């Protein structure tokens, strides 16, 4: 349903993404893992054109785009088929929780106020924030803000939801509540592309893991194939570091 072909992105001389090919089927949960600075987030942001790739093409449903010749209208269409959950939540600070979820539906999808309200309440109920409708983002904890932002993304009924390190800015006590919500979203059959450092969570919910290093995809496959049976030395090295650190902390 979503496929990216030969995506390249350079900042001046520096090539960040070196020809990425990815396929995501409907209902897939694809998780991008890898060391910091390898372009996982950049790749995710290319999908809805928050970053401008140098070359490459993307297919999303019936939309077929070449990044080099993309028009403003195509960018809007692409963004309206996707939704993004940011590391820093990025809720509209001047709007209450309910307004944050309602407004995009009214502006982007031209829904009526009543329709938008009902849908928003439903979504906010799912993420457990039905009692916070009139709060402003600054009055909520990080975990609550992130759950609002998930509700805002889902309320638009996108074809794919992009999660950009959704728990990295949260303190450890709040990570659980957000992961629980993401897991529920995954189980509901939503197509997801996720960037995370929560390895055990990735292993649990993903249908496909993509391991990236230095702007390339090193290896991809089902969670078991990557986490347990990988023979690729770079993948093993990365995962060993990860598990060792974890032991160290515990």
């Amino acid at each position, binding site marked *: 349903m979503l496929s990216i072909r030969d995506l390249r992105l350079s900042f001046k001389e520096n090539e960040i993404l070196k020809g990425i090919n990815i396929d995501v089927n409907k209902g897939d949960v694809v998780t991008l893992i890898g060391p910091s600075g390898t372009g996982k987030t950049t790749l995710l942001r290319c999908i*809805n054109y*928050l970053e401008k790739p140098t070359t490459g093409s993307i297919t999303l449903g019936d939309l077929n785009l070449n990044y080099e010749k993309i028009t403003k209208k195509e960018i809007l269409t692409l963004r309206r088929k996707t*939704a993004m959950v940011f590391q*820093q939540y*990025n809720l*509209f600070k*001047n709007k209450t929780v309910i307004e944050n979820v309602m407004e995009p539906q009214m502006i982007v999808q031209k829904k009526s106020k009543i329709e938008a309200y009902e849908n928003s309440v439903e979504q906010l109920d799912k993420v457990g924030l039905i009692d916070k409708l*009139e709060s402003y983002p600054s*009055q909520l904890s990080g975990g609550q803000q992130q759950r609002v932002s998930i509700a805002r993304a889902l309320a638009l009924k996108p074809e794919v939801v992009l999660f950009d390190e959704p728990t990295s800015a949260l303190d450890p006590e709040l990570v659980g509540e957000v992961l629980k919500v993401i897991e529920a979203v995954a189980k509901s059959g939503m197509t997801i592309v996720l960037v995370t450092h929560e390895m055990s969570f990735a292993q649990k919910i993903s249908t496909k893991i993509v391991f990236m290093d230095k702007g390339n995809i090193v290896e991809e496959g089902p969670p078991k194939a990557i986490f347990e049976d990988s023979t690729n030395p770079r993948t093993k090295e990365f995962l060993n570091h990860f598990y060792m650190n974890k032991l160290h902390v515990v």
Partner: protein
Amino acid sequence: MNIGYMIEVFPKLLATLPITLLIIIVSAILGLLLSIGVTYLRLKNLKILGPFLEMYVSFMRSTPILIQLFLVFYGLPVLMRSLGFNMDFGAITSCIVALIVYNGAYLSEILRPAYLAVEKGQHEAADSLGYTPFEKFRKVILPQLTPIALPGLGNAVVYLVHDTSLIFTIGVVDIMGQAKLILANNYGENKIEMYLTIALLYWLVCLVSDRTIKLLEHFTYLKKIERKSKFNKSKVNKEPVSIQ
């Protein structure tokens, strides 16, 4: 001190207030509109126009308003004549033109940082949801930019009020011009009383404009959050909301 004299001249000075107010209101509104255009173009980082706009802003902000007044008053008719328009400009028109051109630059240096103070994440959120650039500006950026810009704009209005005390130098009979005339007829008697009355009058004008701005601030989202928090007595994260 002659209080009776102050009470006597007060209505005479007040009678010229409409001229001052007209100049303030027209140049504030048109100056703001000009500065919005200037800010918009400056933020686009245009290759050819950009440096010219920076020069314009730098020049207007760095030269005394008195000099600018003279330049416009004496220069504008010459400029128009060289362009083939044969028209006369009154002193009031010259004042208004000078103050608009000045405020276009000055206010732009209030609006530009206010725009830049809105976090990048807010832009990205709106973009990722599929807002058009105009929808993003109207619904997300403008409401957040306003409370940041308002205190600066309020100060600018106060400065504008003060700047109008210079327009008598090119012959406008405003408060200061009227005072000059009365004093001249009076052989320069009661100077202190006269200037004190003028000071009080300017104070009054600024007080009104100040209250208006405070009222506007009250309706922006930052104050809304504050009011709500007091009402709820809930714990508020003292996060970057306290921009002022």
